[in-house]
């Protein structure tokens, strides 16, 4: 066995590890390929002395293709998998290429922890081409279980020539998958393979020395002129032993893990929920893993005993890595230092979990970078999971938003398996609204979850659901930290106490840099040396990075020569944004600029930007730079990032020297992205997030503002020159362009820019014409409206052009109403309408009719907002907008003449404004005061008195419905749970009449809740067929989010306003899923029920269920126990 097994195993483990399985693999073990021998026996050519796959093309198999292939497939079952191949199949490869055409190998690679994804054609490019869990197997010459010509093996010479082209083209993907980091491992390859040496040589040539390993290499193969040349220059390493023997030895030496042992630790899908140990089905596991990490039982497996040195080494490693992603083993070993806020966070989360209730608000942990939020979130996940009661999902920071439906699939599965609540921890460092959106999505599907998110420090944050991670350590925390560090080495705590400045917000991140790499280094006085050096270099450090001088991390980086202009960097210079940069400085900048926003750069993208010259030296380069980390995600994607965003930020500040270079580096990256067309394309997502973080909607927007236009132009360049037409990128492009006019002085120029932005947004909307992503369409429409709103402002402020301004405003208003119908939770639609209206009203240039019209619109828009679903920030913004509009409205009254002329034009705006003036501001979802009820009656009587005039105006009808309802019930329409309604049959009919008229209005006025109320009226008017039809439709509408979707808002009520009682028989029940259906005697209809609601989890078919209520939510009628109703 060669000595370099360690190096080989290390390379395999690091990945990407790609296996090339040649056609000779079945021959290796016994010297006979039974599959080929049988084919040749059956279809002729068996007597040929040189048995090879090429002879199949000369035989009779082509005469009856389907029959021949079916027979061949059947043969595959007859023969055993070579024993060595079972071993090879136990390794978690990143990808596989195969020139064999049989199915025997498949059995060795399909395991309980890995799926197989065959790739037959160039047209299909897997999304996750390096996934170790879904192994992409590229079948260069097809496979016998397929019958389509593009997928089956060739059976004639001509077919072979055609397929050869495809095989070569597919194999060209190998270098791209391997990258300069990985290895190509060739086994079972011989000179008579259909994929010839001439085909293989260019692939090998595209890789670097030391990346290709050939096993079972025969003398004949090694003496090939190309191969021997590659052996000489180190591109290929060849062995006469089998790959399997290397793997077995590597496993024995503890260098790699194979098969079951691998799956136990990495892919174990077992989780304990209460007293049940359940295994997450592979399909759900793989689905969820794309978005989040499931904390399985392996996370808190007892740690093995380790030496003190190893413990220190792992602790330091924990400090290094856990700032961006949890290192679970470290929590078990007690490496996480607990900050004071964590106790509060745990209490709040446990309180919510114990409540078992649907959550209205996420918990948001906020604080500046480097305050220990990620570690705290990991610790919280670990503590909750360790009690084994609630399943936990952890979503780390990634360039793309997690897919909520994936999360939903897991939570649903967990609930079906006994989970009362799920905990979702999302270390997204995104705006609070995204957590609200996620929560609403899941809650609207009935998921009982507690969601905890992270974001930057929010000064406005208040309320129990916002918990702050303070930047500085308290006195108590400082003492605890000292004690904590002393557990690793007695002198460590003392050293830190002398260094610790409680006001230094970077200390926790700097700790890794301050600690010496070895435990023995602490004792030998290395810490002391740091102390001395610090005093000595203080002056110089101030010169280099004056703004960072009191910062522990900056010092640590300086000490590590990372933010020093040391000899570390080569002398060869490049120009970036007018500044001279070495190649390595450029590499660091390209990683650090996105890294400061928590973004990691996809490896392929980085390599494209750096071009070929750095490619061959890439691995060496990386190993020399301690500030970069490369990670392989669950899908096998490799990306590079900083150790911590805070480090990246400091490095960028110290080395990049301003927004200009940062923007220039970002543009370099964005300029090289590729679009694979996948919805989860990593590079597109990266570019979108990078542009967003350097755009106008983040706190640092003013810093990058002068370069918005440049960034937008880069996006234009890739769209126009490279045809990357991605609506999400176009949305960023338009936003950056629109906002760039803030720094443009020339009005005409600004107008041109806005027109360009408008075109981009319209093109994006056009691209999305048939897309099902309503939220994205809505966002693009809002951006388009915002551009139009800016145009309105331009027209008024600089040109005094009222009519064009009004015309543009009307377009914007229509677009916004459509955007809101597509996504009723899109608050920005209201926001844009509000500021555009404000600008237009402020101008005082509109005539009264137009003014009233737009006032009615904006008031109506405010009226339709479901405040309970808004994040705190949005609620505050809404208040501010209301205030701005109220201030303007307060200045002017509606004159009689204007009212009359609106009336003559058939507009209901005048009526709307007068009625809304009567009711003033009403609460969102609670009971009204007697005074408010009186106001509602007055407004209702006014509108009803003018019913014929307002019958065509949706705004007025909506107001009519609400004022009628509120005056009748004394409450808003949706007010708490299980409302009973004291409505007579006439009342229901009246209500239904208004709703019928509303539902016939323009589509933009149809909100789902009209449909819901309509269904409710149908039920109470005994039109059950139509009622159930309506609720079926509503139940299927997946775009309705928010808690209201599943809250049981109303109970079926009699004319006395009391809940009606029903009886029924169970028609089916599933105790595991806790769901069932009941045939209601009084209705002769089946409705849903939840067995545990009635305390009968084991209820069975045909059992009776008597005296229950029927409740209504947006999913439909549901049986509700009497005990749930509180009069």
């Amino acid at each position, binding site marked *: 066995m060669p000595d370099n097994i*360690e190096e080989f195993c290390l390379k395999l483990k690091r990945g990407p590890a790609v296996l090339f399985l040649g056609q000779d693999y079945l021959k*290796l*073990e*016994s*010297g*006979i390929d*039974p599959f080929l*021998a*049988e084919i040749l026996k*059956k279809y002729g050519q068996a007597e040929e002395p040189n048995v090879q796959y090429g002879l199949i093309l000369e035989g009779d198999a082509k005469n009856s293709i389907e029959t021949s292939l079916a027979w061949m497939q059947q*043969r595959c*079952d*007859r*023969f*055993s998998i*070579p*024993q*060595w191949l079972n*071993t090879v199949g136990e390794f978690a490869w990143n990808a596989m290429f195969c020139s064999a055409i049989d199915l025997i190998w498949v059995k060795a690679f399909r395991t309980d922890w890995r799926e197989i994804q065959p790739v037959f054609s160039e047209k299909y490019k897997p999304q996750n081409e390096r996934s170790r869990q879904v192994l992409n197997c590229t079948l260069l010459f097809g496979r016998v279980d397929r019958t389509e010509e593009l997928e089956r093996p060739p059976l004639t010479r001509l077919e072979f020539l055609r397929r050869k082209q495809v095989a070569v083209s597919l194999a060209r993907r190998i270098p791209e998958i391997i990258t300069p980091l990985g290895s190509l491992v060739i086994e079972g390859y011989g000179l008579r393979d259909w994929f010839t040496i001439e085909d293989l040589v260019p692939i090998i040539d595209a890789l670097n020395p030391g990346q290709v390993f050939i096993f*079972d290499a025969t003398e004949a193969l090694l003496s090939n002129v190309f191969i021997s040349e590659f052996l000489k220059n180190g591109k290929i390493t060849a062995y006469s032993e*089998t790959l*399997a*023997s290397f793997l*077995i*030895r590597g496993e*024995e030496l503890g260098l790699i893990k194979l098969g079951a042992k691998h799956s*136990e630790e990495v892919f174990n899908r*077992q989780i304990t929920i209460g007293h049940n*140990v359940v295994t997450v089905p592979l399909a759900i596991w793989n689905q969820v893993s794309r978005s989040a990490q499931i904390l399985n039982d392996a996370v808190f497996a007892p740690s093995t005993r380790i*030496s003190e*040195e*190893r413990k220190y*080494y792992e602790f*330091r490693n924990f400090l290094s890595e856990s700032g961006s992603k949890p290192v679970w083993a470290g929590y078990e070993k007690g490496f996480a230092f607990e900050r004071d806020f964590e106790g509060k966070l745990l209490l709040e989360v446990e309180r919510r979990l114990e409540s078992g209730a649907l959550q209205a608000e996420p918990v948001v942990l906020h604080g500046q970078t480097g305050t220990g939020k990620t570690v705290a979130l990991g610790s919280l996940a670990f503590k909750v999971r360790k009690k084994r009661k609630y399943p936990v999902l952890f979503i780390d920071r990634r360039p793309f938003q997690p897919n909520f439906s994936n999360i939903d699939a897991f939570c649903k599965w967990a609930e079906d398996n006994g989970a009362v609540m799920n905990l979702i921890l999302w270390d997204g460092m995104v705006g609070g609204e995204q957590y609200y959106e996620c929560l609403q999505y899941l809650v609207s599907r009935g998921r009982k979850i507690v969601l905890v998110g992270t974001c930057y420090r929010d000064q406005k944050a208040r309320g129990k659901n916002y918990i702050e991670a303070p930047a500085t350590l308290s006195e108590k925390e400082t003492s605890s930290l000292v004690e904590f560090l002393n557990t690793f080495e007695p002198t460590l705590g003392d050293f830190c106490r002398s260094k610790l400045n409680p006001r230094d917000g970077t200390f926790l991140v700097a700790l890794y840099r301050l600690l010496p*790499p*070895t*435990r*023995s*280094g602490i004792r*030998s006085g290395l810490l002391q040396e740091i102390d001395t050096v610090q005093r000595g270099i203080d002056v110089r450090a101030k010169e280099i990075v004056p703004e960072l001088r009191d910062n522990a991390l900056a010092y640590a980086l300086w000490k590590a020569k990372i933010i020093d202009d040391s000899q570390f960097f080569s002398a060869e210079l490049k120009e970036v944004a007018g500044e001279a940069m070495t190649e390595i400085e450029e590499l660091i900048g390209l990683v650090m600029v996105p890294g400061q926003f928590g973004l990691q750069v996809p490896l392929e993208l980085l390599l494209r930007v750096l071009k070929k010259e750095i490619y061959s030296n890439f691995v060496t380069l990386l190993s020399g730079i301690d500030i970069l980390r490369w990670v392989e995600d669950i899908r096998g994607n490799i990306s590079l990032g900083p150790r911590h965003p805070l480090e990246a930020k400091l490095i960028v500040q110290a080395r990049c020297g301003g927004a200009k270079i940062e923007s220039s580096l970002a543009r370099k990256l964005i300029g090289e992205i590729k679009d694979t067309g996948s919805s989860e394309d990593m590079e597109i997502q990266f570019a979108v997030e990078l542009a967003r973080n350097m755009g106008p909607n983040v706190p640092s927007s003013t810093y990058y503002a002068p370069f918005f236009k440049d960034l937008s132009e880069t996006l234009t360049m890739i769209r126009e020159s490279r045809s990357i037409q991605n609506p999400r990128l176009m949305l960023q492009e338009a936003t950056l362009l629109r906002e760039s006019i803030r720094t443009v002085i020339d009005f005409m120029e600004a107008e041109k820019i806005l027109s360009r932005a408008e075109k981009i947004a319209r093109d994006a909307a056009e691209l999305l014409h048939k897309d099902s992503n309503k939220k994205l369409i809505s966002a693009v429409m809002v951006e388009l409206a915002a551009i139009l709103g800016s145009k309105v402002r331009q027209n008024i402020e600089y040109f005094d052009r009222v009519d064009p301004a009004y015309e543009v405003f009307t377009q914007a208003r229509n677009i916004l109403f459509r955007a809101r119908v597509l996504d009723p939770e899109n608050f920005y639609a209201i926001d844009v309408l509000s500021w555009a209206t404000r600008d237009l009203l402020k101008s005082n240039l509109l005539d009264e009719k137009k003014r009233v019209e737009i006032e009615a619109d904006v008031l109506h828009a405010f009226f339709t907002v479901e405040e309970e679903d808004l994040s705190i920030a949005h609620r505050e913004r809404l208040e501010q907008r209301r205030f701005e509009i109220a201030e303007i409205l307060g200045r002017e009254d509606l004159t009689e003449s204007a009212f009359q002329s609106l009336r003559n034009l058939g507009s209901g705006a005048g009526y709307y404004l007068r009625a809304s003036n009567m009711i003033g501001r009403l609460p969102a979802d609670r009971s009204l005061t007697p005074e408010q009820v009186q106001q509602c009656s007055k407004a209702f009587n006014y509108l009803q008195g003018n019913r014929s005039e307002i019958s065509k105006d949706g705004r007025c009808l909506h107001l009519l419905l609400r004022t009628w309802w509120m005056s009748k019930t004394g409450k808003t329409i949706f007010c708490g749970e299980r409302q009973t309604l004291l409505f007579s049959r006439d009342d229901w009919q009246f209500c239904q009449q208004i709703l019928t008229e509303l539902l016939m209005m323009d589509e933009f006025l149809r909100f789902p809740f009209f449909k819901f109320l309509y269904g409710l009226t149908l039920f109470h008017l005994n039109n059950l067929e139509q009622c159930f039809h309506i609720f079926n439709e509503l139940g299927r509408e997946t775009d309705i989010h928010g808690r209201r979707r599943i809250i049981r808002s109303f109970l079926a009520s009699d004319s006395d306003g009391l809940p009606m009682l029903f009886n029924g028989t169970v028609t089916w029940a599933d105790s595991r899923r806790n769901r069932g259906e009941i045939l209601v005697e009084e209705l002769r209809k089946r409705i849903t029920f939840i067995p545990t609601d009635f305390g009968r989890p084991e209820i069975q078919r045909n059992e009776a269920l008597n005296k229950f209520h029927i409740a209504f939510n947006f999913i439909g009628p549901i049986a509700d126990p009497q005990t749930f109703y509180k009069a």
Partner: protein
Amino acid sequence: MSNPSTLMYQALALQDEIDKVASKLNSDGAKVFGSPSFTMPKLTPAELGFIRVVSWFYVLYFEIGKINIEFLSKRLTVYGLDPEGKLLRHLRNTNCLRSFLQHNLDPCSGHDSEVEKVCDDWFMDCCKTSVPSDEAQWSDCLVGYLNECIGFLGGIKAVIRAIEQDESRDQILRDWEFRRKRFHAPHEFDPIIAIVSGDVGRDNIDVDRFRRRHYEKWVKELEQLVGDYEFEKEARKRIERDLLVENAIVIPVTGHDIMQLVGLSPGPKVREILCLAKKLYMQKPCSKEVLLGRLRNELEKNEA
């Protein structure tokens, strides 16, 4: 209910038939089970009968017939003889029941709790309780198990018959023979261990203990070899290697000392320097302090 003795007799008859057909089919006359030397189990009382029968069939499937049963049982589904996987489950049941009845299971171990679950389910199916206690319940288990055995052996017999009729019969038989040839029972290593230990002057080595320590690893390594190999030669290589490793001396410095000396973090480098220390010590045995000094000099020399 069938009599356990009758069922056992049926199973034995099937075992004989399988061997008969196999020996005719295989060119070398190889049987599936051969003639087991172990005695027939007594079937009463039912509880002991059950324990004995499970052990008996475990030895039959996993020791005497190991490689053949492995080869043939994989073909049960290929020939459509086990559409529901019931017969294959019998193998798993036998393995689990044997562990359950003869070992102390650890409820904290994932593997053991899985074994326990399989057995609980099996007992529940057989005698309506997962904890059989009286004679009637154990009798149900015994009868149930023997019926399973008969079903399984019937399936194996059918597989051999199907191979006999298969148009790829020759290739399949060659494959089967190849698997048999490459299977090396533990006792095959013993004479080689004795020879090697004699050759290196370690006559007193406990062959059985030494083989038990390394057998699994050797077999796994031999399985990875391709082409024809000389068993004796390959086995000897491995025995010698492991004999040498066990022979290795204990040096006075530890990995801990090395990490202290060089200021290293745990990792492959520590192993590398340990190997160097061992080499130095072998050249000239010395005390810990002296060895550390020599090691330091050597490392400085290498660095220079």
